[in-house]
């Protein structure tokens, strides 16, 4: 059981990076960005190809980040310059990335069994694989929390937040909202690709299918974080994203352990997210119900 829990925590830490990316588009920019489903694979593909060619795993993660930013750039340009709705722009990039990712990998999957990964350094220190992943995950996640906290406090970061909150106001204050949207999408998908690169290395393969459902998992983690740990200041929200991603993995581990077939996982996740997203409707419905019951009494 402890082993299952540790595995869930390690996976949750890596998915926390993707969750941060999803949070930037979904909550900060108010865009549901489906590019994620493709850019996670782009990150995995770039890292896998580079590592099998002998490039340092950490450098490979850097390249994955840049590749993800490129994917975000495409979606951003489609949306802002060509005026295609955000959701559709993301879908177009996602579809295009399927082919591009196949080109990067040259085949549908790449094994990383016989090469050194980002975790090898720690495994060589005597840690087992799961613990190594947890260590690397904690290092990445804490650095990213610090960087994102700083970045969204800067003038440019504030401009991105204002754009997501009220684009008219942002433009009236001299903010080029096209640029801020593109920038937000690039950073988001850069993070998602970084997560993809780390996940591929932890499972020791990159697969063209590994992005399917990732947007829903990201959203689930964002929402679980918000529901369980509140929406206070930005720093605590960043931490809650990580906790949300970990809790999601623990929930999944538990339901699998309880005997749910793995094939039903995506259905389960989709239903969970649908329920979580509709919570405001239910709570307002409950509030009216309570009120009317009081009145009738």
């Amino acid at each position: 059981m402890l082993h299952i829990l540790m595995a869930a925590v390690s996976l949750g830490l890596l998915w926390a990076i993707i969750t941060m990316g999803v949070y930037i588009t979904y909550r900060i920019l108010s865009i549901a960005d489906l590019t994620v489903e493709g850019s996670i694979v782009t990150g995995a593909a770039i890292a896998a190809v580079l590592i099998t060619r002998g490039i340092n795993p950490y450098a490979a993660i850097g390249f994955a980040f840049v590749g993800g930013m490129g994917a975000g750039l495409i979606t951003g340009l489609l949306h802002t310059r060509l005026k295609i709705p955000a959701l559709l722009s993301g879908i177009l990039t996602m579809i295009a990335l399927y082919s591009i990712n196949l080109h990067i990998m040259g085949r549908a999957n790449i094994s990383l069994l016989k090469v050194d990964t980002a975790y090898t350094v720690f495994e060589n220190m005597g840690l087992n694989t799961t613990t190594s992943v947890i260590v690397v995950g904690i290092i990445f996640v804490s650095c990213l929390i610090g960087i994102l906290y700083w970045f969204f406090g800067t003038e440019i970061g504030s401009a991105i937040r204002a754009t997501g909150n009220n684009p008219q106001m942002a433009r009236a204050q001299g903010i080029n909202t096209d640029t801020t949207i593109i920038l937000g999408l690039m950073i988001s998908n850069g993070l998602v690709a970084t997560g993809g690169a780390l996940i591929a290395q932890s499972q020791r393969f990159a697969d063209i299918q590994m992005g399917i459902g990732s947007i829903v998992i990201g959203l689930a983690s964002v929402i679980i974080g918000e529901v369980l740990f509140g929406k206070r200041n930005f720093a605590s929200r960043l931490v809650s994203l990580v906790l949300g991603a970990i809790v999601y993995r623990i929930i999944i581990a538990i339901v699998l352990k309880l005997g749910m077939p793995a094939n039903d996982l995506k259905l389960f996740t989709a239903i969970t997210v649908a329920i979580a997203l509709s919570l405001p409707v239910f709570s307002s419905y409950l509030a009216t119900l309570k009120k009317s019951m009081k009145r009738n009494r």
Partner: protein
Amino acid sequence: MLTVKKVTKIFNPRTVNEKVALHDVSLTLKKGDFVTLIGGNGSGKSTLLNCIAGVYQADQGSIIINGTDVTRLCEYKRAALLGRVFQDPMMGTASDMGIEENLALAMRRGQRRSLRWGITNKEREYYKELLKKLGLGLENRLNDKVGLLSGGQRQALTLLMAIVKKPKLLLLDEHAAALDPRTAKMVMELTDIIIQENNLTTLMVTHNMRDAIKHGNRLVMMYEGQIILDIKYEEKQKLTVEDLLERFESISGEEFTEDRALLSKGD
């Protein structure tokens, strides 16, 4: 300070929904002019302000602000020259961001935004002083989200944001219309003070005749996308609601009825 030259704006051109919202509109504001812009619902007041601000591009004509031809400039670039307050109190501020963060965003209007911290401690002190002058107690709530403020408080804050960078031109579009009468009065008084203190060139839309007469040194009236009246300085000082109605009727050839337009005599 502002020259609008023969500006025409047509919405949905060459369709059944074609609408000439502005037709050959020309208007010049001298430095320090405070123009109240009045006219019935749909007469093109907001469209004129939006064309000046760059929300819409004029189809014909040119717009010059403080010597800069902005006709082809996009909205965010024109923002450096302008301060704007809208009718909807939600529209002028970012509701999920703090009061001080909103002011800091406004303070950087027209500047290149960098990776410097979004707000400095020195600024905070300055914002406190500015907010204190509003007399709404906002100086003690710098970190509160703007979403927590009332409509009147938000409009007062938006007004402050519009003027922190000393705009060449202040555009107010019925910025007190969505407020209850008492709050509207407070916001209008505040507007007068701020405009006088900073000697701002202002174009203020209102549908309230009494406000249009009471405020400013010039009154411009629009009707069906055109300017039909421009009453200046001394003449404006003597103007009464009855004069205005009479002149409206003689020019438009229509009798002025309350229900036809939102143009109210005010109370």
